[in-house]
Structure formats: structure tokens, C-alpha cells
């Protein structure tokens, strides 16, 4: 049994315990420069500070008067964007908590199956920790969901009244599934190690499916806001159905329902994986005993792999989603791809590139000793090449397509020769390939060899995992904001406008949303870390890993 302190030779150990922290400095510097250039240069030059309410003023005039606000606007004392900031804060924070279940359920299922198949204590331990973590944080997600509902009805009364009526049945299903979901995850935690394997797998599958269908139910609403199933809202007679059945189906199963649903699941899995990594790194630092250090090192690596799995699935699903928006809500597509909200997509893809680079650095640093010991210099060089190629791909991806105009094809704009979508598609493909191959190498080539190495986490890989956790969470709420701002200045696209007209412009401006992101992330991380301190089962003795 090797302990991390008493390694074989001392000199390489000294080196390894730090790792190459220059790479980490490079990642952080790249992130900082990217944000500064984006906010200081690209956003102003792409019209990102001009509201959609102003840009689409003519369209707004055509809105059906019955969907205009009939009540006075409820203000919240946060300026003209106050209401939108409120909703953004509540909904983005809700997403951070709700995704714990949407993504976490599948990770938990994997742990239940691994526990059943391999009977290693670490699977059960991590599974129980994560299940209890989700049980305790269930109420936080539900509370933010409820608060969001309240804010909608108070701040956007016409929209909420219409929306909740159209989506009454999906929402009813969603509310019922809340109960079923908490039953499953609670029982899953409670019965760990107490009931037979098949039943336990059943509970894990039930949990995952109930949250999957719950998300589907709410996604009928969420996707319908961007791509409504009909041109306007036409009500019929009172009763079970307020409009013909076929119309309801158009609204619920609208053109972007499925792409949004699958994209969300993949994003949530990725987010949950990176979050495990982040929390594991904090526990790693917190605990002093070797068994715990080994265990949390492993948990971090496990989380990163799941994060990567979710990450490489997203570009494909995202492209499908974008294509659905392109064909069904072309104006919204131009807003976010070739218009004043394109900076959000740039930011998202920039963070995605940086995530792949960070994960590559994690693997370079994390497997350094192992690869040297195994003599696999080929893999070592491959990882290094990946980090460099990913960085180059990232540089291509963050190119703004144009500068100096609100829309890409406005007269007088400067077209960036490097900003063509063709290049970007290739660059994303390269990132997907890199991510997939890293998963393959780590799982297939290094699988059995990794076990002896746990506990020897170098400082650089520790920091890389931490950064991956932050970026993986941030990217989720950026994506939420992209959808929200694609819709502006409408609540139901081209049907119900954001009430208040030019006095209350949307979307939330770039600096304000940045603050919302930081507060949401800060709050969520504080809660996560605190909860994870109480819900974690640490190893009490050395186990045979």
C-alpha cells in the first residue's frame, strides 16, 4: 500500500506535487483576456449594448392588443431591466439546482450499476454521498422554481395567465413528478446496501426517468416560448381542453422541444460531472488522511470523465437545436448568430474551448507520473498535442464573424476572414474528437493502471479540475441566457411582448447579466460546498482499490 507522502523516489515526487502550474496560469490568463476583449471590444462593436426592444420596435407595434399588459407594471427598484434581472437570477439559479437532478440522476445510475458489478466501496460511497446531496438540495431547486413562477405571474401577468393555461397539463405532470422524483431519490439513498441489486437499479432508473420526463414537461413550455406552435393564441370553450386537442399538441410538441430536451440532458450531465470534480478537489484539500485523499482524487477523475462525456455530446445536439431555431424562428436565429446577441454564442463557445483545454491539461498533469512509469511517451505527447490543438481551435472559435454593425450583413461592417462558420464547424469537430479520444484513452488504455496512482494529485491538476468545475457550471447559465435573449423582446415569440414597451428594454444588458451570473454561481457554490461537507461519506480506513 503506497501512501502519497512516502513515494519511491523523492526528487520526482517533489516535482510532481506541484506540477506545471504555468499551464494553469496560462488558462486563467486566456480566460481573463477573452472576457476583457469580449466585453471591451466585441460587444460594443456588435451592438450588444443595444436592446432588442429598440431593434425590433416595429415588430412590437404589430402585437395583438389583447396580449399587451392590462395591469400597471410591477417594478422592483432595480432600474429598467429590474424585472428581467429578477427572472434571470431566479431562473438561472434554479437551473443550477435543477440540473443536479437532471444530470445527477444518470451519474447516480452509473454508480448503482458499477457498485453492483464491481462491489468496490468507492462506488457505493460516492453514490450515497451524491444521493444525499441531491435529497438535501431538492428543496432548493423546487423553491427557486416556485419563486420563478411567482415572479412570472407578478411581473408578466398576461404572459403567465396565458402560458399557464396553455401548458396546464404539462405543468400538472411536472408538479406530480416532483413528488415521484423526491420519493425515488430519497429511497435510493435510504436503501443503499439494504435491498437487492435489481430493486436498487429500479429505483435509480425510476429517479432518472422521472426527472427526465419532468424536464420534458417543462421543456414543452420553455421551448414553446421561443418557437410557439401557432401564430397566435385562440381560446375555445371552457372545459377539459380550452382549445382543440390538435392545437395543444402543436403548442406542447413544438419544433424545438426535442433538441432542447436532449441538449439540456447532455449539458446537465456535463455540469454534474464537473461539479463532482470541483467538490472532490475541495474535499481532497480538506482531508488529511491518505484513504480520503485517494478516494477524492479518484472521485475528481470520475467526475471529469462524466463532464467530458456530456461535453462532447453537446455540440451535436446544439447544432440540431440551432438548426431547428434557424428553420422555425429565423429572426431569433439571426439575433443570436448573426446579430447583436452573437457575443453570447462567442462567450459560450469560448468557454467550451477553454474547458477542453483545461481538461486536456488535467489529464496531462494527472497522468504524467503514470505515463512515465508505463513508458507511454506516445500518449503523453498525444495529450500535449491535444492541449495545443484545442487551444488553436479555441482561437478560431472565438473569432467574431464581423465587427462594426448590429447585424453581420449590415452595410459597412467589417467581415472577419477568420470568423467564417466553416472554420468554426471544423474547429468544434476537432474539439469533439479530442474530447472523445481522451475519454477513450483514459477509460480503455489506462483503466487498470490508474488505480495505484490515486492520491498523488499534483497541484496543477488539482487547479485544472477546479477550473473545469467553475467553467462547466458557468457555461450552463450562459446557455440559459442565450435562449432568453434570443426571444427578446418577446415572451412568446411574435405573440406576447415583454410588457412595458421601450421603457422596459430586454434582454438584460451584458454587464448586468455578468453580475447575475457571478451572484448565482457564488450562491450555488457556497450552498454546494456547505451541503457536500455534511453529505459526504469519507473512507474511514484504507480500502483495496
Amino acid at each position, binding site marked *: 500500500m503506497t501512501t502519497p507522502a512516502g513515494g519511491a523516489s523523492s526528487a520526482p515526487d517533489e516535482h510532481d506535487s506541484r506540477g506545471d502550474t504555468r499551464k494553469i496560469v496560462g488558462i486563467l490568463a486566456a480566460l481573463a483576456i477573452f472576457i476583457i476583449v469580449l466585453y471591451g471590444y466585441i460587444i460594443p462593436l456588435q451592438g450588444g449594448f443595444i436592446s432588442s426592444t429598440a431593434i425590433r420596435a416595429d415588430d412590437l407595434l404589430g402585437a395583438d392588443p389583447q396580449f399587451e399588459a392590462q395591469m400597471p407594471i410591477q417594478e422592483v427598484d432595480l432600474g429598467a431591466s429590474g424585472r428581467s434581472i429578477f427572472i434571470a437570477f431566479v431562473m438561472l439559479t434554479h437551473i443550477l439546482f435543477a440540473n443536479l437532478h437532471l444530470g445527477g440522476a444518470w451519474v447516480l445510475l452509473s454508480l448503482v450499476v458499477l457498485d453492483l458489478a464491481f462491489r468496490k466501496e468507492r462506488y457505493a460511497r460516492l453514490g450515497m454521498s451524491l444521493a444525499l446531496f441531491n435529497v438535501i438540495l431538492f428543496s432548493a431547486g423546487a423553491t427557486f422554481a416556485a419563486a420563478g413562477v411567482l415572479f412570472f405571474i407578478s411581473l408578466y401577468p398576461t404572459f403567465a395567465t396565458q402560458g399557464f393555461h396553455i401548458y396546464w397539463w404539462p405543468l400538472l405532470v411536472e408538479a406530480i413528478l416532483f413528488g415521484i422524483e423526491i420519493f425515488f431519490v430519497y429511497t435510493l439513498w435510504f436503501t443503499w446496501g439494504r435491498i437487492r441489486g435489481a430493486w436498487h437499479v429500479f429505483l435509480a432508473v425510476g429517479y432518472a426517468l422521472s426527472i427526465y420526463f419532468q424536464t420534458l414537461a417543462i421543456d414543452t413550455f420553455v421551448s414553446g416560448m421561443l418557437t410557439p406552435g401557432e401564430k397566435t393564441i385562440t381560446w375555445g370553450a371552457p372545459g377539459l381542453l380550452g382549445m382543440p386537442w390538435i392545437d395543444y399538441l402543436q403548442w406542447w410538441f413544438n419544433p424545438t422541444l426535442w433538441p432542447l430536451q436532449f441538449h439540456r440532458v447532455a449539458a446537465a450531465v456535463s455540469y454534474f460531472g464537473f461539479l463532482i470534480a470541483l467538490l472532490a478537489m475541495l474535499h481532497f484539500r480538506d482531508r488529511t488522511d491518505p484513504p480520503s485523499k485517494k478516494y477524492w482524487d479518484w472521485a475528481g477523475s470520475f467526475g471529469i470523465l462524466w463532464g467530458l462525456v456530456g461535453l462532447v455530446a453537446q455540440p451535436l445536439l446544439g*447544432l*440540431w437545436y440551432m*438548426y431547428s431555431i*434557424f428553420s422555425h424562428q429565423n429572426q431569433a436565429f439571426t439575433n443570436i448568430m448573426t446579430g447583436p446577441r452573437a457575443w453570447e454564442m462567442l462567450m459560450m463557445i469560448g468557454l467550451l474551448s477553454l474547458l477542453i483545454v483545461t481538461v486536456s491539461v488535467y489529464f496531462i498533469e494527472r497522468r504524467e507520473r503514470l505515463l512515465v512509469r508505463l513508458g507511454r511517451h506516445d500518449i503523453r505527447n498525444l495529450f500535449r498535442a491535444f492541449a495545443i490543438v484545442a487551444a488553436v481551435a479555441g482561437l478560431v472559435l472565438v473569432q467574431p464573424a464581423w465587427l462594426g454593425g448590429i447585424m453581420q450583413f449590415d452595410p459597412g461592417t467589417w467581415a472577419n476572414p477568420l470568423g467564417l462558420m466553416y472554420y468554426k464547424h471544423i474547429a468544434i469537430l476537432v474539439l469533439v474528437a479530442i474530447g472523445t479520444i481522451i475519454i477513450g484513452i483514459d477509460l480503455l488504455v489506462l483503466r487498470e493502471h490508474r488505480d495505484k496512482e490515486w492520491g498523488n494529485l499534483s497541484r496543477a491538476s488539482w487547479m485544472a479540475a477546479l477550473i473545469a468545475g467553475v467553467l462547466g457550471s458557468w457555461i450552463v447559465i450562459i446557455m440559459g441566457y442565450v435562449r432568453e435573449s434570443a426571444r427578446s423582446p418577446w415572451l412568446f415569440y411574435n405573440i406576447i411582448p415583454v410588457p412595458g414597451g421601450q421603457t422596459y428594454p430586454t434582454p438584460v444588458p451584458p454587464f448586468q447579466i455578468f453580475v447575475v451570473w457571478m451572484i448565482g454561481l457564488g450562491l450555488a457554490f457556497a450552498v454546494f460546498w456547505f451541503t457536500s461537507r455534511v453529505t459526504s461519506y469519507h473512507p474511514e480506513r484504507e480500502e483495496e482499490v
Partner: protein
Amino acid sequence: MNRNRSRRLTYAMWIAIAIYIGIAIYVFWHFGFTKLPPPPI
């Protein structure tokens, strides 16, 4: 036997990964290069 099985599993996984990358290329080709975005006029 066990070693053989794990080797076969490894091959299967690599093939799955290769297929995934293949699908990715196809998806990007299908949506990205041929349909998105509208060509500049």
C-alpha cells in the same frame, strides 16, 4: 478468457468512439456546412 474478453470490450469501445466521431462529422456536414448559416449575399 478474461483477458480476451476485456480486449474485445476495448476494441468495441474504440469502435463506438470512432462511430461517434463519424456521426459528429456527418451531423456537422449535414446541418453545418450545407444548411447553416445562410450564405452571405
